[in-house]
Each structure stands twice: as structure tokens, then as C-alpha cells.
């Protein structure tokens, strides 16, 4: 039994990585790039994103880098994200206890010169066991970007470098099954090139990627491509299609999926990502899987409440190989920079018919520099 009351652990690390809050899309604006410098969202905020961070928060405060106390040249943007969490974790009926763990410490920089810009994310990562000194610091993302309309949030973008191929909802919370078992896992960044077009009415992202030739132990082990397209049918409705092919030395995985987003009233966003996964193992064996996540988000003042439903069928040819999870997350945006988040999960095997359920309840602190 895990009887220690305090376990410093990264087992449940829920780092935000490069993802953003897709819950804000449609509710706050039509595209990710209207609030972020990256055409895929995540990382550094644009002026509109900074304004959103200020207006949604309880007590405001200057949303800029370091509260605008550090003057920056016009071509340079800096920022960062820091996260840590602690709370109760229960693996099964006996194995339970309190956990505390760091999650994220990343700094961002973007230097823009006309149509060209350089983006770098560097910080602390979960180090390799027994090799901490060499693996503690890493740059998850670094890319060179050209955009058709400098300073604008729309148009054609071309990126070359290391980044997460654009696929799926791209939630901050990587335990959501569409990330955990789908095509955008934690630390899934790798080297590639992307051609992207963003417009308030529609967007498309085509990415070709390779297995990281520098860091051989990266999570993305394959070569392949990802395609994500989304149409804003109305200002309240978006429909997306997605596909990804990932070929590793061991297997070939094909993802095909649909994404839907619907605003209800002015304060609720429902979004879902359903992926069909065809997994062919070179040595023999085929799996057809379903990975699905649906999230309903309710905005009230400085709070955002998320109810998430997750379903994963490991192999559709057999019963009792499915698992489900329910998430209830409450975000409180205290200031432009500070967020307190209560995350709760209840997870089952075959709806409880195939073994013990598990879960956690964690309080997370997020500071955006």
C-alpha cells in the first residue's frame, strides 16, 4: 500500500505543454491565432489574448510580460508558464494517498522581423531517471515562421522546426483521452514543416514530421503527417476533420477523426473529438480503436467549469477492452497571470465491469509570466 501521505511524484504530471485553452475558441473569438502568436494556439499571447486574460480574471492586473515592468523592444515577446499540483490520488481500493508534484516551467520567446519570426520554448522537462543533469532542461519547441500578413492573425503561415503537429482539440489537460490515447500525446513535439491557413471562417493545417534526429528518446518515434481542417459554419458552430499517419520502426498508426464545437447561449461551449485509430503492428496484429473526448465548458465570471467525458476502446473486436473517464475541472482566473484549478477524475474499466476504478482530485496552481 502506498501509505506515505506525501509523495513527491511526477507520475500524474499534467503539464500544459504547447496546448492552449480551446474552450475559449468561439466563446471569446473565432480562431486560436486571434489570441496566440502561434497559428495553432498555445504559448505566447497576442494583444487580444492579453486583453482576454485581463478581462476574464477576477482582479485583472497588467497582463503583459512581468506586468509590463520590464520594457521589451517591439520585435520581442517574452513569457512563460509555471504549474504545480497536489492532492489526492487513488489507483485502486487499497493504493491511495496524497501527492505533490511540479508540472511545468517553460519560458517563451518570439522575435519578429517583418514576415519572419523565430519562436522558442525552453524550460524544465521531466528528466530521464538516472540522467537528470543531461535531460532536465530542454527546448520542446523552436521554429522559424513566415506569415503572409505580418502582424495579422489570418492568412498563410509556414513553420519549420520543432513543434506539435496540429491535430485534435489540443487541450491543456493531456489526460483527456483524445490526447492520452489519440494523436497529440504529452511531449509529442517533433521536427517538421507545416503549411497553415487561418481565416475566421475556416482554417487548415498540414504538417509533415520526422522522428527527432537529435533527441533519440523523444515521445514521437515515427515519421508521418497530420492534417487538420476546421470550418466555422456559423459564429456558434465549428466542424473539423482530421487525419494523421505515424510510421515507426515497430508499427503504423492511422488516425481519422471529426471535431465539433457548439456554443449554447453565451456561456456554454460543447466540443468533442472522436478519433478512429487503425493500428497495424509490423510483427503481426491489428487493432481498430475508438478514442473520444467530449467537454462541456461553462463560463461564469472569472470561473470556467469543464465537464469532460472520455472513452477509449483499445480493440473494437473484443468486449471488456474499453475504459472511460469523467473529468470535472474548475478554473478560477484570479488575476491576469494567476489561475487556480481544481481537477477531478473518475476512471473506469468497461464501466466498472472489468476491475477497480481509479481517480484523483488535485489542486493546481498556474502562473503565466
Amino acid at each position: 500500500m502506498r501509505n506515505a501521505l506525501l509523495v513527491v511524484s511526477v507520475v500524474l504530471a499534467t503539464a500544459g505543454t504547447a496546448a492552449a485553452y480551446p474552450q475559449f475558441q468561439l466563446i471569446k473569438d473565432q480562431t486560436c491565432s486571434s489570441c496566440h502568436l502561434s497559428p495553432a494556439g498555445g504559448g505566447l499571447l497576442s494583444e487580444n489574448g492579453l486583453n482576454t486574460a485581463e478581462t476574464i480574471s477576477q482582479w485583472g492586473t497588467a497582463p503583459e510580460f512581468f506586468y509590463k515592468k520590464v520594457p521589451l523592444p517591439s520585435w520581442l515577446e517574452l513569457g512563460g508558464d509555471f504549474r504545480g499540483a497536489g492532492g489526492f490520488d487513488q489507483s485502486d481500493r487499497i493504493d491511495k494517498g496524497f501527492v505533490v508534484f511540479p508540472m511545468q516551467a517553460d519560458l517563451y520567446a518570439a522575435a519578429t522581423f517583418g514576415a519572419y519570426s523565430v519562436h522558442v520554448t525552453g524550460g524544465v522537462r521531466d528528466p530521464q531517471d538516472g540522467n537528470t543533469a543531461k535531460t532536465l532542461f530542454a527546448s520542446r519547441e523552436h521554429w522559424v515562421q513566415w506569415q503572409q500578413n505580418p502582424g495579422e492573425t489570418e492568412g498563410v503561415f509556414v513553420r519549420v522546426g520543432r513543434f506539435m503537429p496540429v491535430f485534435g482539440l489540443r487541450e491543456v489537460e493531456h489526460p483527456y483521452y483524445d490526447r492520452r490515447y489519440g494523436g497529440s500525446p504529452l511531449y509529442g513535439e517533433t521536427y517538421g514543416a507545416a503549411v497553415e491557413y487561418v481565416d475566421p471562417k475556416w482554417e487548415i493545417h498540414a504538417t509533415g514530421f520526422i522522428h527527432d534526429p537529435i533527441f533519440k528518446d523523444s515521445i514521437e518515434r515515427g515519421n508521418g503527417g497530420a492534417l487538420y481542417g476546421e470550418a466555422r459554419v456559423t459564429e456558434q458552430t465549428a466542424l473539423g476533420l482530421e487525419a494523421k499517419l505515424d510510421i515507426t520502426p515497430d508499427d503504423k498508426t492511422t488516425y481519422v477523426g471529426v471535431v465539433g464545437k457548439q456554443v449554447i447561449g453565451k456561456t456554454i461551449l460543447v466540443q468533442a473529438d472522436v478519433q478512429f485509430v487503425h493500428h497495424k503492428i509490423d510483427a503481426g496484429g491489428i487493432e481498430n480503436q475508438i478514442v473520444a473526448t467530449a467537454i462541456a465548458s461553462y463560463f461564469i465570471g472569472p470561473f470556467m467549469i469543464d465537464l469532460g467525458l472520455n472513452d477509449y476502446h483499445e480493440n473494437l473486436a473484443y468486449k471488456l477492452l474499453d475504459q472511460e473517464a469523467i473529468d470535472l475541472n474548475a478554473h478560477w482566473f484570479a488575476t491576469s497571470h494567476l489561475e487556480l484549478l481544481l481537477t477531478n477524475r473518475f476512471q473506469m474499466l468497461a464501466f466498472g465491469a472489468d476491475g477497480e476504478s481509479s481517480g484523483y482530485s488535485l489542486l493546481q496552481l498556474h502562473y503565466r509570466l
Partner: protein
Amino acid sequence: MNVKMWPFALLLAAGCNVENDTQDDRPATFEFITQAILKPSCGTAECHSAMKAVKGDVFDSVAGARETMTVTHSDLVYKCEQLQPAETFPCGNDALNASYLYQVIDDKDVEGDRMPLDQALSNKDIVLIRTWILDDAPGLN
């Protein structure tokens, strides 16, 4: 069929796949078990991926899992000939009882934690790993 509709038809067809809970004819091989069970459940970024390699164990690739089970922690899976004293196949539960991998997914590790920590494996996956070990772990060496 309208070309725009084929992804939806594909999803529908997949969802209607005939399931079977009375048998499991999935390959009980080292490669399949690594790719279908160990990689998604144990070889995640923050646990036994090559990137993190908790306790030196790697389960997110066939090569990594082979290195883990034959070199790093050769007590994870025992073939009959590796038992002390060596036995001939079939050695039955002797191999199962000696294999630490089976103990930690079915019961507890030396620290008292069942693996994976975040969610137990399904019984069907545990039985497939059990079958593989009882079959003398084909494909491991």
C-alpha cells in the same frame, strides 16, 4: 456514397464492429504485447517512455522493451530455461510466479503499488500477458 460522408461511415462501421468477450485470439507475442498493451498503458511520457525511463524501464518501443526485459531488469519475465534451477518448457506457474512483470500488473510491486499507477490493466490484457509468459515468452529473445 458522398465523399464527404466517408469518415462518418468509417466511424459508424468501427463502432458497430462485432465484439466478442468469450475468446481472445490476439497474438500472445512479445511484439504485440509491447505495442498493444505496454506502450499505451506503461510507456507514457511521464512513466516508462524512453524519455523518462522510470527505474530504467522502457516500454514505448519493441527495442526498448526487449532491452528492459533482457538486460535492465531481466527478472521482469522468466523463460523456463532462465529459472533457477533451469526447467524445460512447459514450466507452468513457476515462470509466472518468478516474473515480476506479471506480479506488478496483477497484484503489487515491492513498494506496494499496482501498475500502471493511474489505472489497472483490463483483465483481458492481464490474461494475455499471463498466456504469453506461460507460452515461454515467444519473441522475447
